[in-house]
């Protein structure tokens, strides 16, 4: 598969080594990215001129948040091929790591968000030490158990507010600018997680993860430090989810176990990555944007109903049965992938 990829990229098989160093993207792709980034950076600033467009800001903020989460999930679930249904744990960890100091000691989550990410990483490391002793189905099951274990702990301990959670103060900013800091935080998370995903994809580490996904036993025989790589992948895939969780809780002005530690959150991540295309840098981004659009559309069309869950499930089943490579993977296999989406 590695050779195929190299061939598809127009590289000779014997220069696969060069693939381990970050490849220089074409100028055209950089231009697209630069324009996109600039637009995103300036979007909230148009407010005084253009009047209120909170809806769009909120929509983009949420999409950026999911881009960050899907890209992070992809590091473990896409590159290494280890499906985690427990990644919502890291969102919750981040949320509470930021919420508790704010609630009790009035420490701003903008300061603790990174700590939230780091603690999520540490939890990922410890969880990985235990859960990654198994492969395949037992691993997936243990991630589900991990999620429910955390839900239970946070529901039962009064210090964390129990089932009701903690109510947080609103950001001390003028009303017009309430959304802006979260927008930029999520933008940082999205860009950061895509960069991380890109760096991993183009490193020896990423190559090792892909080897693990292909055939773990062979990878191990070939000298890939599989255990270390897997645990590292688990931890890395937790960081930005934790960061995002810290910001999300603050932006909602409350944290509650059933909102954060829920398999519905994990389901979204899985859905986005599978539909967008597992194991590619652009896949989770495409998937996140698509699913957010569908969710928003069905919300407008059907109101707050369960219909979007049905659509999500049906989409997942359809994609798995007919396009297992996802959008980006399928397009690439037919050489229809536009260059600005080709980051692998």
């Amino acid at each position, binding site marked *: 598969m590695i050779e195929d990829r190299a061939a598809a990229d127009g590289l000779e098989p014997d220069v696969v080594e060069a693939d381990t160093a970050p490849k220089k993207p074409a100028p055209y792709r950089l231009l697209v990215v630069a324009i996109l980034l600039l637009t995103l950076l300036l979007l909230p600033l148009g407010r005084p001129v253009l009047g209120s467009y909170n809806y769009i800001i909120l929509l983009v903020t949420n999409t950026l948040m999911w881009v960050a989460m899907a890209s992070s999930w992809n590091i473990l679930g896409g590159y290494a091929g280890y*499906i985690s249904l427990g990644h919502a744990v890291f969102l919750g960890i981040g949320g509470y790591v930021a919420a508790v100091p704010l609630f009790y000691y009035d420490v701003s989550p903008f300061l603790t968000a990174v700590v939230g990410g780091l603690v999520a990483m540490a939890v990922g490391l410890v969880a990985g030490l235990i859960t990654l002793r198994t492969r395949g189905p037992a691993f997936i099951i243990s991630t589900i158990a991990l999620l429910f*274990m955390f839900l239970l702990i946070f529901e039962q301990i009064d210090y964390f507010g129990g089932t009701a959670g903690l109510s947080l103060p609103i950001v001390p900013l003028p009303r017009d600018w309430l959304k802006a800091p979260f927008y930029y935080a999520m933008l940082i998370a999205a860009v950061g997680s895509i960069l991380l995903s890109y760096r991993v994809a183009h490193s020896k580490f990423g190559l090792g993860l892909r080897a693990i996904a292909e055939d773990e036993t062979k990878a191990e025989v070939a000298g890939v430090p599989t255990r270390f790589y897997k645990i590292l992948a688990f931890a890395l895939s937790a960081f930005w989810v934790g960061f995002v969780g810290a910001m999300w809780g603050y932006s909602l002005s409350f944290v509650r176990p059933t909102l954060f530690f829920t*398999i519905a959150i994990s389901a979204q991540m899985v859905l986005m990555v599978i539909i967008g295309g597992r194991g590619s840098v652009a896949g989770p981004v495409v998937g996140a944007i698509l699913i957010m659009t569908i969710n928003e559309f069905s919300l407008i069309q059907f109101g707050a109903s369960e219909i979007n869950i*049905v659509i999500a499930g049906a989409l997942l089943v359809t994609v*798995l*049965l007919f396009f297992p490579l996802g959008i980006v993977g399928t397009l690439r296999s037919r050489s229809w992938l536009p260059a600005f989406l080709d980051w692998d």
Partner: protein
Amino acid sequence: MTEYLQVAIFGLLLGGVYALFASGLTLAFGVMRIVNLAHAVFIVASAYIAFFAFEHLGIDPLLSIVFIMPLMFVFGVGVYMALFSRIEGSARYVEMTVLLTFGIAIMIEGLLGWRFTGIFRQAAPGYLTEAFFIGDFLVPTGQFYAAMLSLVLLIGLWAFLRFTRTGYGIRATMQNRAAAQLVGVNVRRVSAISFGISAALAGASGAMMSYLFPFFPFRHWQWIALLLALVVLGGMGSLKGAVVGALILGVASSLVVDQIGPGWGPMVFYAALFVILLVRPRGLFGKEVTA
């Protein structure tokens, strides 16, 4: 001491029901290597059938298995034919089944939520609030009936696997799929039937859930987490393991609920899962499992 014994009796009754809930799950994995994340949503869907049959037609939940089980059997065979037969032999098959059943679970959950909303339901047959005494020990009648019916169904399942020709085929497929095919077992037919049986067991479980445990659509995730933990503890694909695991965890969680608090019961399941992963990843009675 009497108190502990009393708690242990509650736990055993509960464990008997858990064993039935988990039996279909472990059967699907044992025969077809399907990790069915939708198993609990099958149970919840069946619970809705039993609930409405009781509310509108006055049919006793335990009696309703007479039509729920065949219904779910047909449903299971249909799902297998329509979806799983397509992915047979695909690369990373087990993982595919997880993702596929994940999608199915979300879909059914959404449909249930859309039709029946998210409110708690619980059927209330007369025996729900009754209880009787064996010696000094209190036995809730509803739980007792459910545990006995579970026992009957599990023995029936065992006898079916042990003594019928299809049962031979199923067990052969469990032991070695390729070899079974080689000696003339129609593996596809056996798989479809097994998945049907698995769904039928979910149907019976749902009939019991309808009055034993309050349910709503989203609840199935909590159940699947418990049941999967239990199945991993017993050894994936092992029916014996599922039953033993269910009884152990039923008693253990009842003790924890009694001693620490009602919210902490499920913790036993997750803790047991992590301990078994550390000590013996294949589970109590399981074979080594790889993707």
